[in-house]
């Protein structure tokens, strides 16, 4: 492939109906032609700079007099701000480096939200059906991707683990495609962890430095990139401090995110648990690309909002009075004794997996329930317990419960 062929191929990528991926020939050409790599990056960045959001309409037409009046007011304001800037410069201290790094990340987050369409591919140490924020240093890497499309002031996105959990958003509702069930929720439903949400992809990382203890941030520049690294500790599920390091790489000319890497502390070492393998901007995406179901067979479809519960007033009162530990014990015993009807409402999100859950817990016993624990970034609670297997082995497990539903019953949200 010649450089001219490559440039023509890049132009074709800007046509509608393209998924933004480069052909293997183009990728191969880019590997030994830095000029063409730069050409492609700059073309995508130029297209990104051409995106805009429609400004809101001003309802009242301004008369010429009002425009003149406002021009005069603006001139006065500029004069005053000039005077004040002069004074503030006189009394200002040196620039705070941490603030500038945070400002840089905030600006980059704004850039990212202004880009029309983009595609990010990651590799993450996790399992296909765990939540997207689940990072386990002991697991091998699996592929994960995020596609974001802006169309007519609406946002569409798709977060997908290869052959696993997928979430799509069509501007109004989120759909979670799980192992063999489909859960439909409104736009605010918390299927996707907030820090990975397309609206928050960098904003949350900016906040990471605020929320973590012993934080340390660093910003360094190369010829073509700006690298922002944040390091700090966060509480894990079991309440232990775990050290994380997040590295964001930005293209210098465009301030657009070029790559992300996350390390997590494991047995004293920092282990790479997430790395982006591709970031493409202004890729041509269609609604079908975003919203198509994963290639699997789905047998269950349910609403994220819990449907009407047919409980008597007495039963409802009892369920509301139940503590989290009592609920955890009741739910687990219902599964162990193969009587899930004793916890139907609590197992609503696990309907499609009940047979596997009951098989997995057959012959087990549960004991030593901990006090409910809360986390800063989770609206439910977590109860730890000991699970004793039929062979006598005991494991420390947890169950996540939440009661932010209209009935105020405890509902299992994770852990099982």
């Amino acid at each position: 492939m010649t450089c001219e062929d490559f440039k023509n191929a890049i132009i074709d990528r800007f046509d509608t109906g393209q998924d933004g991926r480069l052909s293997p020939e183009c990728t191969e050409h880019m590997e030994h032609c830095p000029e063409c790599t730069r050409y492609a990056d700059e073309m995508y960045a130029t297209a990104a700079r051409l995106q805009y959001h429609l400004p809101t309409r001003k309802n009242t037409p301004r008369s010429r007099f009002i425009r003149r009046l406002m021009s005069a007011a603006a001139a006065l304001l500029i004069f005053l701000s000039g005077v004040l800037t002069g004074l503030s410069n006189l009394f200002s201290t040196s620039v705070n480096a941490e603030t500038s790094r945070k400002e840089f990340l905030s600006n980059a987050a704004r850039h990212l939200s202004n880009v029309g369409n983009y595609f990010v591919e990651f590799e993450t140490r996790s399992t296909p059906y765990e939540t997207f924020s689940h990072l386990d240093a002991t697991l091998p890497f699996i592929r994960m991707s995020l596609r974001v499309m802006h169309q007519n002031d609406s946002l569409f996105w798709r977060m997908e683990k290869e052959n696993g959990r997928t979430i799509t958003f069509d501007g109004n509702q989120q759909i979670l495609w799980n192992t063999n069930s489909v859960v439909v929720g409104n736009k605010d439903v918390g299927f996707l962890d907030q820090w990975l949400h397309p609206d928050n992809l960098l904003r949350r990382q900016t906040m990471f430095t605020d929320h973590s203890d012993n934080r340390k941030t660093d910003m360094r520049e190369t010829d073509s990139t700006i690298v922002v690294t944040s390091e700090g500790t966060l509480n894990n599920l079991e309440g232990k401090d775990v050290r994380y390091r997040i590295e964001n790489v930005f293209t210098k000319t465009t301030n657009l995110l070029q790559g992300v890497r996350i390390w997590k502390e494991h047995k004293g070492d920092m282990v790479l648990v997430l790395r982006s393998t591709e970031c493409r901007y202004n890729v041509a995406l269609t609604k079908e690309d975003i919203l198509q179901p994963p290639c699997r067979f789905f047998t269950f479809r349910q609403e994220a909002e819990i449907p009407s519960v047919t409980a008597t007033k007495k039963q409802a009162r009892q369920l509301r009075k139940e503590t989290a530990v009592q609920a955890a014990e009741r739910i687990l015993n219902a599964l162990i004794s193969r009587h899930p009807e004793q916890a139907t409402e609590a197992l609503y999100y696990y309907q499609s997996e009940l047979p596997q859950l009951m098989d997995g817990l057959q012959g087990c016993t549960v004991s030593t329930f901990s006090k409910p624990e809360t986390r800063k970034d989770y609206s439910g609670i977590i109860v730890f317990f000991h699970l004793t297997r039929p062979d006598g082995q005991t494991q420390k497990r947890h169950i996540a419960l939440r009661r932010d539903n209209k009935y105020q019953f405890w509902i299992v949200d994770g852990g099982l």
Partner: protein
Amino acid sequence: MTIFPLLRRKADEIKIPDLAAQERSRLLRYACSLLGNRDDAEDAVQDLYIRLCDRPADEKPRNIQSYLYRSLHNLCTDRLRQRPLRTQPAELWTNICDEPPTNNEQELRYVQQLLSTLPPEQAEVIRLRFYGEKSFLEISTLLNTPLSTVKSRFRYGMEKLKNGLFHQSRT
């Protein structure tokens, strides 16, 4: 995939105002990129709609999409000609590459300013591609221009913008 379901109907069944209504958001973005502000763009799209409703029902243009975008382009050009002198922010006349825009109004003015630096035929292809959300093939039909010409106009236009944005800011 057909983006515009109305186009799948037989030509006789299509009502032009219906199509204009369905295309409204794309027409609005296209007009915004020409006029640089939403108020004027909305007025231009409204004028287009009124003009379409006033047309005799039996008069049907050969290519409705082309007719819509051509008419809107003419309406926007008329508006630009009639526009009285108005105060414009100083940053429009300084180096536009220095600072990225910070709000939607600035973004729009920035885009309009960028595209105004290009030859009109190249800017038109870029507008139709990004704001009209048309494929290169659709643009070639709209403009009655060969597909290869559309692609080369897009490429040269984008390259000029790219060089202006990145190479100028490096120097």
